[in-house]
């Protein structure tokens, strides 16, 4: 099973995703964190999310890129990946490659995690509707994340958009 959860910044998608993970029956719940905590703001953000998860007994794994190489300690658990928007940025700006290569690598990484788990939840982000134009790298990032989201939604069994904490089922 694969569940894709999207939404804007601070829409409540993380809290919703974590609740979904908690409701799945499993002895082990993995939380794959993809954000590299740059600077003070990054550290505070990570600390805030860690505090939110403190009593949920998730097994946190930090993986900033190349999911296809991630080996989980145990098979058949459930897993939450947060968040695709950070992973895509890390893949684009640090690992590199063409759009197709990056999309394929992320696709492979997700399939690799699916093989090791019985249920995977992926959080992504809506960054597509502000009407602004940006520098070439940012334009490319927006295009890339859009493509990744469309592809993940095709693969997913369930797709949810969270709007201010309210889950809207798209698929």
């Amino acid at each position, binding site marked *: 099973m694969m569940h*894709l959860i*999207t939404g*804007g910044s601070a829409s409540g998608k993380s809290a919703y995703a974590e609740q979904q993970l908690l409701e799945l029956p499993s002895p082990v719940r993995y939380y794959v964190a993809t954000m590299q905590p740059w600077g003070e703001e990054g550290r505070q953000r990570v600390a805030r999310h860690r505090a939110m998860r403190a009593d949920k007994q998730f097994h946190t794994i930090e993986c900033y890129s190349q999911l296809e190489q991630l080996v989980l300690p145990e098979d058949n658990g459930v897993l939450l990946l947060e968040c695709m928007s950070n992973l895509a940025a890390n893949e684009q700006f640090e690992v590199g490659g063409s759009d197709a290569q990056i999309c394929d690598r992320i696709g492979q990484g997700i399939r690799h995690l699916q093989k090791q788990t019985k249920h995977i939840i992926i959080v*992504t982000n*809506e*960054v*597509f*509707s*502000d*009407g*602004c*134009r940006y520098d070439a790298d940012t334009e490319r990032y*927006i*295009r890339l*994340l*859009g*493509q990744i*989201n*469309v*592809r*993940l*939604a*095709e693969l997913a069994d369930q*797709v949810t*958009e969270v709007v201010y904490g309210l889950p*809207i089922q*798209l*698929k």
Partner: protein
Amino acid sequence: MILIIGGRCQGKAAYARRLAEEKGYRILDGQQEAWQPDTKAQVLLNVQEWIRQAVYDGGDLQKLEESLFFDMPELVTLDEVGYGIVPLEKKEREYREAVGHLGQRLAAEADTVLRMVCGIPTSIKP
């Protein structure tokens, strides 16, 4: 008329192209071609791009809108652009306003409005 809206890169054009192919419709895409008032295309993709060109080249927005509506297209895709901070640049504000107002007009005329998120269409009209 079917109007397909949504953020950038959500698969609107790909979806519209599939529908157009089934029906053998002629397509005009704002990302690939300039606006041609005399073109009889039943499918207009990325209409926001013609608005952007009109705003930046000093084209006549009203004329563009009139010609868009003169022969009502069967299928239109338009970006949603209003979910951000008001832009500092005047032309960008004009662009955003014009796209928003055109979207309202198209949605009012449309029989069906689909909103695309992650490649998945949700019907918001009827």
